[in-house]
């Protein structure tokens, strides 16, 4: 899958742009605070219709501006044009695929596929479980729309149930057990299935990045929660505690994707290099999983990732990340000499929000 043309207006500090993109991608070079990451953010926006940095839309809109528009002309077999615009007045967002507004946002998700790797993504290895759950959710939602539906059902049921718990109404809270169990079991089952397939690949990628053997990836969740039937007893058992705390303590919103090295949590015992390699490995698996699920190669967005590695690791990383003639790559670096060796991409300069090809 390739981005053929990108239109961005009113987006962050970027001057309005409408550009064709090279099939292999581009290297974006420029000094700090010029807009390189902002441009990656614009490229990624039509993937999930939100900022890849997790910023709310009003922050993505240019300061004092009326809002923004992003349009991605995507080539994936037939061409699709995925567009999103946000109006600051009324805080309204409009989404369209080939000019038509889908009934639900979920129906537009995945028409354009990309995987981003930002400096902060090392938190996949060093951060708390919420970071890894977000990783799983994004990846599985893009792989299968049903997952996204289950996720939004789950969140809605959980919010209602927790609200009832805070009101001290256990009988009302339990009324939401059925939808919670149904959607929750779907989520847990999908995450377990994915982890089962990814575990071996994780170990292999980690080794391939030269950080040694003995890593393990597994999914930690409540016993049997991949089946809806297991939920009722689990929720009933936790009820007294949940009432006291005013929140549901059972379910995939509490789970973790555990990374281990030699039987110990990588988060606590891994070296910086190992943690960074684990994050890279997860990103590579995200790419491979999406490719397998969707039958097309997602674009890869790399924001300033090479700087953190030594020359030797850079070369290894570049081989893994940039492999494949099908892959369109967008990467940023402050200067040309910080690009990995052997990289063969057209260079665009980003200066004060302007793109100079």
């Amino acid at each position, binding site marked *: 899958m390739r981005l053929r043309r990108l239109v961005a207006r009113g987006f962050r500090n970027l001057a309005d742009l409408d550009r064709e993109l090279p099939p292999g991608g581009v290297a974006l070079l420029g000094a700090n605070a010029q807009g390189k990451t902002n441009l990656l953010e614009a490229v990624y926006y039509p993937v999930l219709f939100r900022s890849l940095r997790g910023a709310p839309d009003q922050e993505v809109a240019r300061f004092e501006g009326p809002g923004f528009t992003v349009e991605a002309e995507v080539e994936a077999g037939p061409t699709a044009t995925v567009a999103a615009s946000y109006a600051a007045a009324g805080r309204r967002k409009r989404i369209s695929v080939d000019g038509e507004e889908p009934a639900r946002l979920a129906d537009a998700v995945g028409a354009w596929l990309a995987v981003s790797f930002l400096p902060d993504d090392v938190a996949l290895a060093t951060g708390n479980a919420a970071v890894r759950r977000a990783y799983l959710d994004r990846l599985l939602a893009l792989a299968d729309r049903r997952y996204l*539906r289950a996720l939004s059902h789950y969140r809605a049921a959980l919010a209602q*149930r927790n*609200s009832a718990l805070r009101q001290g109404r256990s009988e*009302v809270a339990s*009324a*939401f057990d*059925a939808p919670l169990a149904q959607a929750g079991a779907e989520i847990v089952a999908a995450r377990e299935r994915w982890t089962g397939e990814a575990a071996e690949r994780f170990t292999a990628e980690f080794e391939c990045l030269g950080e040694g053997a003995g890593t393990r990836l597994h999914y930690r969740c409540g016993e049997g929660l991949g089946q809806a039937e297991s939920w009722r007893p689990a929720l009933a058992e936790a009820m007294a505690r949940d009432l006291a705390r005013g929140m549901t303590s059972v379910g995939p919103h509490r789970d973790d994707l555990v990374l281990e090295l030699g039987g110990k949590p990588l988060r606590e015992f891994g070296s910086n290099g190992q943690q960074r390699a684990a994050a890279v490995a997860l990103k590579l698996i995200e790419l491979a999983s999406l490719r397998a699920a969707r039958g097309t190669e997602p674009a890869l967005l790399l924001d300033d990732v090479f700087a953190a590695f030594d020359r030797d690791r850079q070369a290894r990383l570049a081989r893994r990340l940039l492999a494949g003639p099908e892959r369109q790559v967008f990467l940023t670096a402050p200067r040309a000499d910080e690009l990995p060796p052997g990289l063969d991409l057209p260079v665009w300069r980003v200066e004060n929000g302007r793109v100079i090809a």
Partner: protein
Amino acid sequence: MSAIEALITELARLPGIGRKTAQRLTFHLLQQPPEQAGRLASALVAVSERVRPCEQCGNLTEEQPCAICRDPRRDPALLCVVEDASAVAVVDRSTDFRGRYHVLGGRLSPLDGIGPESLRLDPLVARVRGGEVREVILATNPSMEGEVTATYIQQLLAGLNVRVTRLARGLPMGGDLEYVDGVTLAHALVARQEVS
């Protein structure tokens, strides 16, 4: 506040009407002959003065009880439970149902502060206990909250001597199986029907 401003503010409170639309409606009304606005105003006053929930079923009516509850041809053994009075008109217009209704006045939603006590559940139990009702058809909306409300009522009526049914849930017309969510698909599978 000016009269114009007051009207815009009131209109903008209505569902689906933003400030822009409210302004448009206001200026449209101002361009009409004054009788037009007068008719609208008196219709509004009449509605708010005369229309009340039916004491039996909760449907909106000008007389007590409502026309449906009074109609002797309606089967008192069948009770269709809906969330809002607007659903009574919809079900009655588009189906062959000729029983009676019971309007809950909402659905369970703790986030909106709507618990069982905010719904007309006691009157429902009282009607069922009255003995005439044989079947309660739960016709709450096919949303998560609607489902939950239906389940809650089903449990509430469990001890009583009444048949409780739920509107079938299935695949939407004009859909693509691949994009149907798991919950709907699971329901449709459970509620599958013999075709031969």
